[in-house]
C-alpha cells in the first residue's frame, strides 16, 4: 500500500490530468460554436490569444468551464490575474479548485 503522502500526491496528479482534459474538451467544443479554428497542436507553451481562439471564444470558454466545473476563477479575484499561456490557464483553474477544496 502507498504511504498517505504518496497517495495524496498521486490523486492530485490524477485530478490535474482530469482537469486539463476537461479544459481541452471544452476548448474544442467552444471553438466549434464560436466558429474559431484552433491551431493543430496546443501545448503548455501555446499563447492563448494565438491558439485560434479570439476574445469572444475565450469568454465562452470561461463561461462553459464555469458550468462544467462550477468555478470561474476570474470572477473571484481581488486582483485580476490573466494567463498568457495554456499552462498558466490550467494552473489558475487548478489553484481555484484547490482553494475551493481547502
Amino acid at each position, binding site marked *: 500500500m502507498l504511504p498517505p503522502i504518496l497517495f495524496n500526491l498521486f490523486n492530485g496528479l490524477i485530478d490535474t490530468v482530469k482537469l486539463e482534459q476537461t479544459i481541452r474538451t471544452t476548448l474544442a467544443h467552444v471553438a466549434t460554436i464560436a466558429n474559431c479554428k484552433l491551431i493543430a497542436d496546443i501545448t503548455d507553451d501555446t499563447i492563448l490569444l494565438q491558439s485560434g481562439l479570439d476574445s469572444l471564444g475565450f*469568454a*465562452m470558454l470561461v463561461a462553459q468551464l464555469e458550468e462544467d466545473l462550477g468555478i470561474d476563477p*476570474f470572477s473571484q479575484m481581488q486582483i485580476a490575474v490573466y494567463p498568457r499561456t495554456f499552462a498558466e490557464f490550467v494552473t489558475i483553474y487548478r489553484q481555484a479548485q484547490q482553494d475551493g477544496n481547502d
Partner: protein
Amino acid sequence: MDLLQQLQHANYSSAALSSDGSVSYQQLIAGALAIRQQYPQLQQQGVALRYSTLPQFLMALLAFDGWCSALYLLPETDLDIPEQVRHWPCEPSVIQHTTRSSQETLWYLATSGTTGTPKWIAHTFASLSRAVKIAADQSTLHWGLCYQPTRFAGLQVLLQSVLSGACISDCSSGDAEQRIEMMLSSGITALSATPSLWRQLLMTGRLNQLPLIQLTLGGEIADQALLNKLARLFPSARVLHIYASTEVGVGFAVSDQQAGFPLSWLDTRHSGLAFKIDEQQHLWLKPRHTPDSNLARRLDSEGYMDTGDLVHIQGNRVQFLGRDSGIINVGGNKVHPEQVEQVILQIANVLQAKVYAKASSVLGQLVVADIVVTSDTDRAKLQPQLVVHCQQHLARYQIPTRFNFVDHLSTNATGKLNRKDPHG
C-alpha cells in the same frame, strides 16, 4: 474657432502622430490647407469621410471642420447618407477660387440607436471637444488609439490628443498581441480602452513593459479586480474609469481607482453634473449645459435626465448594474436582444425566443438565448442549424453563446416577454 484655427493658434511644434514615420502639427495644418485649396467645391457642402489612415483622416477633419456644412464619419458598417452629401476623397475641382468665410460644421456620428438600427446623430465641434483637457502635462503624452476614430469613443481620444498637442498612434486594428507590439514600438504612454480590451492586453503578459502614465477605462462597467490590477502594475499612473451616456451627451470620470462612484456625489455636484437615483434604481443626471432641443423634452421638472442605467448603493459607493432596456454589452459592443430574437424566430421550429445577458468575467456580458421549440423538433439537429443561421444574419458578438431549450417563456400583462426574470 474651428479645429484648424485652434491648432494654428496653439502653434504646436511637436509630432502630432506617428505611424511609419511621424507627422508634425505643422504638416497636418499644411495638408489641411492644401485639401481646402484643391477641393473648393466641397465648401459649404456635406462631406462623408471614411477612415483609411490616421494622417489622412486627421488632415481631412482639420480641412472640413468649419469649412463644410456637415461631416459624416462613415462607420465600417453600411449606413445611408443624404443624397447631396459628397464622398471624400473625390476628384479635385477645376475651379481654383475659394471664399474665406468660416461656418459651423455639424459632425454626424453613427450610433446603434435604441432599436439596433444604426442612425446618424449630429454633434457640434464644441460638444465633441467639451471633455478635452488642455494642460502642459497632457502635451507630452503619446496616445495609443484603440477605438475606431469614426466612433464617439475613438474621436474623443483623437481630439484629446490633437487639441492638447500630444502625439497619437493608431493601434485600433489587429489582435491583442499585434496591438501590444505596436504600442511597445511606438512608446505609448496613454491609453483609453474598454475593460475587455484591457483584459486582453493583460493576457499578453507584456502590458507592464509600456511606460503608461495615463490609463482610461470606458464603454463598459469597470470592475474592482481589473482596477486593482492596473493600479498595481502602474502605481504612479493616473487610472480613470469614465462613464458616458452618449445618448444624454454627458459623462464623468472617476479617478479614485474604486469601481462605481462615491455615494457623496448624490449630495454634491461633480463634473458639472447633479446626480439622483429613482425608485426603479435608474441613475438620473442633471447637466450644467442645457442639452440639445431633442433631449430637452426628456428632462423631468427639476432638469434631470434618465440615463437608463441601473445602479445600486453598496456601502459608500454607487455601483453600475447595466442597462435597464436590456441592451447587452459584449466587450463594448451593444447588442439589442429584440434584434437577435427576430433572427432566431426566422427558424420554423422556433416558437418563442428570449435573448438576455449572462455575466462574463472576460467580456463583461455574453448573449444567451432561451428558446421554445415545436414538440417534434430534433434538438440535437436544431442546435447547429441555429448557430449557422445566426452566423449568416448577425455579427459575431450578437450570436447567442448558448441556446437553452425551455418549455415555456412567461409573458407579462401586456403579452410581452417578461424581461425582468432571466429564467422565465
